[in-house]
């Protein structure tokens, strides 16, 4: 049994050697040596209440942090939903813009180049290489990029 540390003892932590309690097990076979339990050592902790308080505070802090993480998870889900909604709205805007574009009459833009210029251009320009269709499906980013390129092309012809 370990000795109890009293308040009158010094504040320093004392390592106390526990009385070695040798348990002699009654073996059925008297020829065998008796088994002994290993000696155990205990360390006395001063101010246990303070330490317990710190540990409880630590646990509370950890729980608070975990709670924050849960709140953050919920917020991220909310953010994701808003992003999806935003994406939907932007797609609707795109469709409406396209609708307006289609509703307005197509105007033939007079070409600036003269007939001779066009001939020269035809003579110098080589036929464009035929694009081999890609097997893999295009990502949304690629589709948007190609749409943007086509619109920029149209804008250049208007200028």
């Amino acid at each position, binding site marked *: 049994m370990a000795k109890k540390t009293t308040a009158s003892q010094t*504040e*320093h*932590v004392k390592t106390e050697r526990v009385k070695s309690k040798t348990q002699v097990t009654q073996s059925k076979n008297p020829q065998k040596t008796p088994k002994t339990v290993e000696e155990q050592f205990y360390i006395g*902790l*001063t*101010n246990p209440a*303070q*330490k317990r308080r*710190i*540990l409880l*505070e*630590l646990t509370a*802090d*950890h729980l*608070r*942090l975990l709670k*924050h993480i849960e*709140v*953050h998870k919920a*917020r991220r889900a*909310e*953010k994701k939903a*808003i*992003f999806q*909604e*935003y994406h939907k*709205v*932007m797609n*609707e*805007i795109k469709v*409406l*813009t396209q*609708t*307006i574009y289609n*509703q*307005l*009459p197509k*105007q033939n*833009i*007079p070409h*600036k180049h003269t007939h001779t210029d066009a001939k020269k251009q035809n003579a110098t320009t080589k036929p464009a290489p035929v694009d081999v269709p890609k097997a893999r499906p295009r990502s949304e980013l690629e589709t948007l990029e190609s749409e943007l390129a086509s619109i920029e092309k149209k804008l250049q012809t208007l200028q």
Partner: protein
Amino acid sequence: MEEIPVFVKVDDYKEVLKTINELKVKIDSAKELIAEIHKIKEEEESELETWKIGLSDVEQKIDNLSVLLKQ
């Protein structure tokens, strides 16, 4: 470039105006969504700061405990 006037049917014109109004509504809702995203972002940043402070508190307490245990 010479500007050539384009004539649009009245019905089509009205339709275009209607679509433009719809577009305006959509743009307003997109603006609101961006404001919400911005708000969430600010909240996240403030939360991150709180986490930082909380973690440093925990660290300090662990240090204190460690010191007390070694005394």
